[in-house]
C-alpha cells in the first residue's frame, strides 16, 4: 500500500480537524474494509484518522430508543441486551456480518460507510465509474452478485452494509459532524442511488464529515423478522436479505416496514411488499404474497436473475419470522 500518516485523535473535535488537514485524509474504524482496499491499491489516503478513541463507543438509552456510538464494535452491538430487546433485527443483522474476527474489529460507523464489495471495484485492473473511470463492468460481465433493483446505473453495485438495512427499517437518524458543525440525516436520506455526479460515493457524507451516532427512535410494539440468505455459514456475504417490522392492530397488520439488503446500490425499501402486508393477517400466504410483491419491480442483470427468487424467499421468511412461523 501507499505510505500514509496515522493520526490518533482523542475526541470528536480533533478528529474532524484532522480530516481537514492537507492531503487526502480518511477515517479508520476497525479497518476491515479500508485496509484491504489500501493493500489492493484501490484507496490511497495520505493520512488515516483513527476514530476508535475519538468517537463514542457506547450504546445509551434516549427517549425510549437508543443512541449507538459510531465506534461501537459490531460484536458489542450484536451482544447488547437492549438492542436485542428493542431492535431484534439489528442484532440479527450484526451477528451475521463477516466472521467473528471482522465483528470483533469492525465498527458501526465503518460498517455503514464501507465501500462497495463489487469485485470490479475491488480489483485494481478494472477502472470503473467508482474509481473514476467511465464504465461499469457488471452489465456485460460477471454480475451474479450485483443489483436487481435500482439498476438504472451508471453503477450496479449492491450496498454492502448489513447494518444499514435494519437501521433504515427502524427509522434511524445518523448524527454527522464536521469542523463546521453537525447535522442529523435520516438513514432513508443518507444513502444515494448512483448518478454520474455522485458515483464516487454511496452516501451524502462529505469527505470532512464523520458519522458519530446512530439514533434509533422508540420502536413501539412491533413484530420483527430478519432473514439473510447466505451460501456459506461464515466469511461470506449475503446473497440477499430482508428485514421486516410489523405493527399490529389485533390480528391485522396496520403498518409494515420492509427493507431489502444486497439487492440494490442502497438499502432498498420495498413499498410494494409493505402494501401487500398492510391490512392482512399473519400467515404463510401473506408472507408469500409479500415476497411476490417485493420482487415485482425487479430488473435483474444478465446473470443474477436467481436473486429474484432468493429475495422473494428472504422477504417471505422474514415475514414468517415476524409472524412467529417456522420458516423452513
Amino acid at each position, binding site marked *: 500500500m501507499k505510505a500514509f500518516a496515522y493520526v490518533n485523535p482523542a475526541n470528536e473535535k480533533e478528529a474532524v480537524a484532522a480530516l481537514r488537514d492537507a492531503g487526502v485524509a480518511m477515517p479508520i474504524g476497525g479497518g476491515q474494509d479500508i485496509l484491504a482496499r489500501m493493500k489492493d491499491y484501490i484507496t490511497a489516503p495520505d493520512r488515516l484518522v483513527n476514530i476508535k478513541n475519538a468517537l463514542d463507543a457506547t450504546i445509551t438509552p434516549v427517549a425510549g430508543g437508543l443512541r449507538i456510538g459510531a465506534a461501537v464494535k459490531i460484536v458489542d452491538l450484536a451482544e447488547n441486551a437492549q438492542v436485542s430487546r428493542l431492535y431484534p433485527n439489528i442484532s440479527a443483522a450484526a451477528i451475521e456480518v463477516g466472521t467473528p474476527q471482522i465483528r470483533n474489529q469492525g465498527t458501526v460507523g465503518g460498517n455503514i460507510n464501507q465501500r462497495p464489495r463489487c469485485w470490479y471495484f475491488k480489483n485494481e485492473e478494472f477502472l470503473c465509474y467508482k474509481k473514476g473511470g467511465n464504465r461499469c463492468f457488471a452489465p456485460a460481465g460477471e454480475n451474479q452478485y450485483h443489483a436487481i433493483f435500482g439498476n438504472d446505473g451508471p453503477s450496479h453495485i449492491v450496498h454492502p452494509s448489513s447494518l444499514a438495512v435494519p437501521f433504515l427499517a427502524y427509522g434511524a437518524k445518523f448524527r454527522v459532524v464536521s469542523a463546521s458543525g453537525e447535522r442529523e440525516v435520516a438513514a432513508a436520506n443518507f444513502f444515494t442511488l448512483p448518478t454520474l455526479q455522485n458515483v464516487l460515493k454511496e452516501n451524502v457524507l462529505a469527505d470532512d464529515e464523520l458519522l458519530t451516532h446512530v439514533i434509533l427512535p422508540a420502536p413501539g410494539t412491533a413484530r420483527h423478522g430478519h432473514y439473510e440468505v447466505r451460501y456459506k455459514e461464515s466469511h461470506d456475504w449475503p446473497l440477499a436479505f430482508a428485514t421486516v417490522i410489523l405493527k399490529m392492530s389485533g390480528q391485522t397488520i396496520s403498518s409494515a416496514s420492509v427493507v431489502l439488503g444486497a439487492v440494490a446500490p442502497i438499502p432498498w425499501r420495498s413499498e410494494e411488499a409493505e402494501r401487500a402486508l398492510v391490512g392482512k393477517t399473519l400467515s404463510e400466504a401473506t408472507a408469500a404474497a409479500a415476497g411476490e410483491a417485493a420482487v415485482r419491480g425487479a430488473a435483474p442483470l444478465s446473470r*443474477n436473475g436467481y436473486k429474484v427468487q432468493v429475495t422473494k424467499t428472504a422477504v417471505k421468511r422474514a415475514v414468517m419470522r415476524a409472524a412467529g412461523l417456522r420458516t423452513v
Partner: protein
Amino acid sequence: MPNFDQQPPAGGGAPTPQGRGGAPGGAPPAGGRGAAPAGGAAPQGRGAAPPAPPSALALKYPWPAKPVLLGTRVKRIDGPDKVTGRAKYTHDINRPGMLYGRIIRSPLPHARIVSIDLSAALKAPGVKAAYNVKEPGAQVMYQGDTVAAVAADTEERTKDAARLVKVEYEALPHFANEEQAMDPDAPVVFMGGNTRPGTAQDVGDIEAGFKQSAHIIEATYYTHVITHVCLESHSIVAEWEGDKLTAWCSTQGVFPSQQGLAMGLGIPAANVRVITQYMGGGFGSKLQAGAEAVIGAKLSQMAKLPVKLTLDRKEEHLDTGNRPSAGAKVKAGVTADGTLTSYQADSWGTGGAGQGVGNLPIPYIYTFPNRKRTHKDVYINSGTQRPMRAPGHPQACFLTEVLMDELADRVKMDPVEFRIKNAPVQVPSAMYRTYLPEGAKLFGWDKRHATGDPTPGPIKTGFGVSVHTWGGGGSGTQAHCDIMADGTVVMKCGTQDIGTGTRTIVALVTAETLGLPITAVRAEIGDTNYPRSGGSGGSTTAPSAMPAIRLTAAKALEALFVKVAPTLGVSADTLVATNGRIHVKDDPTKGVTWKDACKTLGADTISVDHMWEAGLSSVNSSGAQFTEVAVDIETGIVKVKRILAIQDCGLVVDRLTCESQIYGGVISSMNFALYEDRILDRVTGQMVNPNMEMYLLAGMSDIPKIDIILKDMPERGVVGVGEPPTVSLSAAIANAVRNATGAAIRSLPLHPHKILAAIEQQKAGGTL
C-alpha cells in the same frame, strides 16, 4: 532423472522392476480403468520384463506381521514445532542482509510488450536489483504472466518499486473461456490453432450397443476451473556463496526444484542445494521450481544478497496452476436390465494458455463395452494448469458418475445396485463390489428415497454415492541410516514433508524396524544433500520412501547385529530388535539394551545406504464416498449434512496421517462441488475473484461430520493415499442434490443460481 523412454512411442515401455502383479498379495491390476481396453481386461504387460526379484534383505524384512507402531495412531513428531512456530516454513527463513523480491506481472490477458522501463524502479529507495523477465516485443499470454522483477531491502519498498516499473502493452485478442476460443470466427491466438484435437478412440461397435439399449441419455456435462489455493503460497529464499546456490523452497520436490533452478539459471545442478523442511500445501502446483523460484534466485545473484520472494494470494490464483476444465457431450445407453452398452463422448477442456486437459479417463471405472470418443484441447488466455491432486480424475468421475445416476433412474435401479452391476472385475485394488454394499449399509442407504424428495416444505434431502480409483505406488527412493555408538539413530532421505506427515512416517518406519520408540530416532528429510527421492506427487511418496526406509534401517540393524552377536556368544542371524532391546529371537532374556548394543561400536558409526525394492509397495487403490445433502429449493442453497468415505491404500503406515489425507481430500472435493470457482471476466479476461473473499472455500461450519472407513490391506504393502480421496465426493454431492430435488445437475460448481435454474427447468417440463 526424468524418465525418458528409450524407445519410440510405438514400441513397448521400459521394463518395470515393480510389476503390477508383483506386489505382495499378487494383486492383479484393476480393470476397466479409464481408457484401458473394454471389459477391464488385464493388460498383457507387452514387452515387460518380469519384476526384479526382491533381495535377501527384502525377503528377510517384509512388513512385520505384528507391528508395534505401523497402522497405529501416531501423532506428528513435528506437531509441537508447528503449533509453537518453531517449525520454519520457507517464508519464515531470514538470512543476513536479505532482500525481498517481487514479480511485475501483466494485467492483460494477451498483449505484446512494447516497452519496459525499469529506471524509476532502480532509483527507488532500497532497490538493489531489477531486470526484465521478458523483453519488449515478447508477448504476455495471460493476466499474471511474468514481465519484470525487482528486489529491495524491505517488503514495502519492493512493492513500491514494483509499481514504478513502467510497462507499455499493445493489447491483443484474447479468450476468457472455451466458447470464445472455439468460436470458428475467433482470431488465431495460439500458434497452430486455438484448439487441438486428441486422437479419436473407437472400441467395440458403438451403434450396435445403442441398438441393444432400452434407454439412451444424451446430455452435456461440465466441470469448471479451480486453483490450488495452497495456504502457504509459493516461496523461495535464495542465497549464493560464490557460484553455489542454497535455496529454501516451498516445493513438493527438492530434487525437481534443484534441477529446475539449475536449468533455469544455466548453472551446474551440483551447485544447487534445495531445502524444504516444512511445507504448507502444494496439491501438485509445486512439482516444478517454477518461474517464481528462478526469478528469486536470479535477483539474488544480481544483487549479491539473499532474496526472499513469496507470492501473494492474487499471484497464486493467476500464475501457479489450476485444475483444467472438462466438458463432454455424451450419449450413453443401457439395456432394460441395467447393463451398460455404449458410451460416446465428445470432450473438451482447457488448461489455460497453450495447455490442454491432459488425460480424461471417461467413462470412469464402469464398463461400457462399446466406446467412441473425440477430444479437443482448448487454449484460452489464462494461467496455465499444473497437476492438481489426481489430475483428470475428479473431472472424469463427475462426468461419468452423474450420468450413472441418470441411467440408473431410467432402468429404475438403485444407484448402488446399478454401480455394482456395472463395476469392473473385483481385485484388491478395485473393490467396488465390496465397498458399495458395505458403505450403503453403514450409511443407512435403505433410507434413500427415489429421485425427488417427496416431503413437503422447501428443504429437500437426498443421498448420493460415487466411486474412484487412483494409482499410487512407488520406486526409486534412496535412504541413509546412521547408528551411533551412543545409541542415536538418524535416518536421512531426500523426500519432503509437504504437510502430509512424511517426516513422521519416516521416523515411524525406522523405529518400527529397529524396535525403538519413535522418539529414539531422528528423521532428516527435505534436503538435496540427502539421498535421492522423487517429488511428492502421484501419491507416490509413502510407497516410494517407506520401503527404502524399512530396508535401510534393516541393513543398519543387521550391521549392528554383527557387532553385538559375539558379545552374546550367538550368531548374528539369530538376533532381533524389539522393545528397545537386541536379543536372540526365541529368548528375549538373552540380549542387551539398545544403548548397550550400540556401545559395542566404540569409535565406529554404522552408516549404510539402501534403496527401495519391490515387494513392500504396490499400486492402485479404490474407494467409495457417500453423502447426504439438504437443498433449500427456494434459495438454491446446498448444505452437506454428512459424508462417509471408504478408502483403501494398502498398508496403513500411520493411521492418523492417513485419515488426515482423507479428511483433506474430501473437503477439497466438497469445495470443488460447492464453492471454488476461478471466475474470469468474460469481456476483459481478467480474474474477478483472485482472493479468498470472493473465491469461496468451505469454512469449519460448512464442513459436516466425515466418517472414514480405512481398509487395511497390509499384504499389499504401501500404496499411497494423497490423491484418491479427493476424486469422488463432488460427483456424490451432485447426485445427492439430484436425488433431493429431482432436477438434473450436470455441471459444477453447484452455486445457488445453478440449482435454482435446474429446478426451474425441471418444473418447466422435466429434465429426466
